């Protein structure tokens, strides 16, 4: 089981977190076109490589954070809490 470094709690078993998928920007709902909105809803880069994604520390600190994960090797780097700059927390914990 993957160890995911929560910026608050430190390394956590992935099963203690919720995975919220690829991180993407929400368009302005007032002005966006259907294409833009549905791109946000459905289309995914889904790379085999580094991906910035959302995790929720559901049984620990209950913070949402972003982390870069390599989708082939499972490496993780630089978790960030929303509103914080990347690099403000510790890095690879394995």
């Amino acid at each position: 089981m993957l160890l995911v470094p929560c910026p608050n709690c430190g390394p956590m078993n992935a099963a203690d977190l919720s995975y919220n998928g690829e991180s993407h920007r929400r368009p302005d709902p007032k002005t966006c076109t259907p294409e833009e909105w549905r791109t946000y809803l459905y289309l995914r880069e889904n790379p085999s490589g580094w991906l910035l994604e959302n995790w929720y520390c559901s049984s620990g600190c209950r913070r949402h954070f972003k982390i870069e994960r390599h989708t082939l090797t499972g490496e993780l780097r630089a978790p960030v809490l929303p509103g914080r700059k990347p690099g403000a927390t510790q890095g690879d914990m394995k």
Partner: protein
Amino acid sequence: MGKNKPPAKYSAAGLLWRGLRKQSWPRVWREPEFKSTYDVVIIGGGVHGLATAYYLASNHGITNIAVVDKQYLGSGGSGRNTAIVRSNYLTPEGVAFYDRSLDLYNSMSNDLNLNVMFSERGHLTLAHTDSALRTMNWRAEVNKLQGINSSVITPAEIKKLTPSLDVSADTRYPILGALYHPPGGTIRHDAVVWGYARGADAYGVDLHQKTEVLDILVEGGSGPEGKGPSGKVTGVRTSKGDIHAPVVVNCTAGWASQLSNMAGVTLPITTHPLQAAVTEPVKTFLPTVVVSGSLHVYVSQTDRGELVFGASVDPVATYNMSGTLEFTEELAGHVLELMPGISKMRLLRQWAGLCDMTPDYSPVMGPTPVDGFYVDVGWGTYGFKAGPVSGEQMAACVANGTTPELIKPFELSRFTEGTLVGEKGAAAVGH
């Protein structure tokens, strides 16, 4: 028939003859030379890619085709799936489509002259809650309207069909009923892959294994490097060199995004591992395929005696196929809920494959905004059973340049148009 001679006849008599004369069988497929130009390049040597090639050749006379795979044939989902076939889907679109596939599977051993061991043993989807039972009823009703043999049966009837199931009422997940689909069953998945490969090869299709596509060549597109919408595909770059072709078909399932991104086409797909496992063999005792959506497990017993288990996809998207311990733990817990008597059976091997999951549990098929670049992807956890019909329809799509009715509902454009297919409702376990 194509220009090449048809595949050597397999038969019991042949077996006897060659056995007596100690003769060996001819090759199943050639080791073809690598050519730099083809009419069609199909990426992915799984059941979808190979069936598309086979039907392009057999139904449309197009034989100057390369099928390229980065590994061996069937190394993707096609070689690692639990081989459950059925047609009792939830939506009319789904039902029509998978039913055609089942037809093709039924005649496949004959058509391909290779026994694919289709075992029409019946498929049970268990319901443990009222709402699951409601969904089963819904599916049964839609199915019946489409002429599909599928109905909801009672615990007593279930027990009769499959005595190893615990249908008592006092379990944590009591079995309240099941959707029973007699024509469903299992098939020898590798045989299907080999059958199409051998068939396609006989028509002259070149099968290039260990040939990885590194890039897709596109000109005139609106995106970076001239790729993307309104571009035109010109070929592929592979680990063995470039191939020029006006038509490129992406049949790479779990890797579909990677390949489509190479052409500048973004897909509504995320790649998740799906895991499976087998036990050591025991004398056969489980006559049907058993699926439980609430417990995220499905199981069948092969003719070799192993139980083959599957589950739902892992929650975390990844291209890593190592598999997890959690999967086996949950699987065992759930299987023993259903069949408490098999706690002493042992898990022999677990493995994983990649599934190209779409938001509506339905595939993405047909043309893309890049001219000449087709996709047959988004097959998620249910694409093996769709191999034959997909091949047939994609072949028609490519050969005729128009999207056949059967796959119209599955075009990529449905996502920008917001007309998703309604399979998600019943797809907790999509096998």
